[in-house]
């Protein structure tokens, strides 16, 4: 396509990278958190639940600002992490972190609902067949919640594609490093006459996200069919 400049292609590629990493990396953690919230009763459960939802409740700028304070090079977590070679500040990794955190509540909720819908009697059956808890999870619970995991992942991916408030506040907008589609769109909207350029990127954004959405639907239908045995 010639109607996207090289910088724009760069933004597209970066957005994909950021969103995919955000989704893939947060998925295991999302599943774990969802499982803990759905199944375990522990002190601090309500607090964990609240923390997970926080990015949803706060304006994204605030989340971005908190990330900056926490994971910036001077932050209480950012500093130590930097020592071991993990840097978020002004890197695409930071964009992925921001996107992942903003998307986390959506992912966790979807997965948690699925876990709550799993018949515990099937898990009990697996136990009597000799499977220890983690094995039961891997061989019974996880396959049964796959549709929910998929739904959670696609929600997270879509949200990551659209996220910009927290991202730009945390890692700002550095072409080739943290300039995602969303920040590019935002920038175009700030200048008079930028609408048509913004529109082009919006279309690209929609196409990508719809692709992901349809892929997820398709996978989900297949999974559901497998499970129902139809």
């Amino acid at each position, binding site marked *: 396509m010639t109607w996207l400049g090289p910088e724009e292609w760069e933004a597209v590629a970066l957005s994909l990278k950021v969103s995919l990493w955000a989704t893939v990396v947060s998925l295991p953690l999302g599943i774990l958190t969802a499982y803990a919230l759905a199944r375990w009763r522990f002190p601090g459960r309500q607090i964990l639940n609240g923390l997970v939802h926080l990015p949803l409740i706060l304006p994204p700028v605030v989340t971005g600002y908190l990330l900056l304070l926490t994971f*910036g090079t*001077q932050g209480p977590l950012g500093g130590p992490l930097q020592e071991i070679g993990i840097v978020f500040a002004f890197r695409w990794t930071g964009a992925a972190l921001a996107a992942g955190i903003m998307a986390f509540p959506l992912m966790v909720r979807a997965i948690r609902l699925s876990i709550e819908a799993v018949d515990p009697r099937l898990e009990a059956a697996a136990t009597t067949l000799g499977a220890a808890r983690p094995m039961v999870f891997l061989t019974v619970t996880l396959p049964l919640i796959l549709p929910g995991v998929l739904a959670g992942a696609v929600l997270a991916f879509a949200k990551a594609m659209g996220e910009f408030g927290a991202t730009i*506040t945390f890692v700002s907008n550095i072409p080739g490093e943290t300039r995602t589609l969303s920040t590019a769109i935002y920038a*175009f909207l700030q200048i008079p006459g930028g609408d048509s350029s913004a529109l082009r990127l919006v279309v690209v954004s929609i196409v990508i996200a719809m692709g992901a959405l349809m892929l997820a639907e398709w996978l989900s239908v297949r999974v559901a069919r497998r499970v129902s045995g139809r």
Partner: protein
Amino acid sequence: EEITVFAAASLQTALDPIAESYAARTNDEIRISYAGSSALARQIEYGAPADIFVSANSDWMDLLDERGLLAPGTRRDLLSNRLVLIGARDAEPVDIGPDLALAELLGEGRLAMALVDAVPAGIYGKAALTSLGLWPEVAPRVAQADNVRSALALVAAGEAPLGIVYATDAMADPRVATLGVFPDESHPMIVYPAAATADASPAALAFLDALSGPEAATRFEAAGFTVLPR
């Protein structure tokens, strides 16, 4: 009578007390909607009930002007601002000119600015650096935030060693120091134009005039703005 003012977000500190005392004096009720200039301009374009618009740049005002949405003869350049280089509280002041070793000062760090192609402060900053011949050198090191305040926050949090913001912003944050002021001639003049909209009431026109008045001037100057003569 009710007067609705749409004003760029960065004016809130100065404008709120002006409006308050004006309201107390006249019994008019003044509602001020603070947001980004681009959003406010678009809203006026699409029929927002604004009586007065105070923008952070001329472009958006021009656009409304062209569309005939302003009350003829009411537009004026209300305020001006200065562009400053900021750094950590304990950083040494510098001389801003073509010889400034900006890249050296930055070291590995980033230069925090607002979006250099979209947000007024960023546009002015880029123009200044360009005219000083410093832009090509630092361009790859710029971290662009979605607005001046976010750029300031990057410096305040210690994530970026240097930043370019308005003097008004620098003044208000004790965590940063103004290292130098960009020469006025290094960038197009920074203006905050104000105007009444096409269907503004006489009361609104009166308030607009008050904004150009001496009492308002005192407040604006206290906040760091330069009041432009009518």
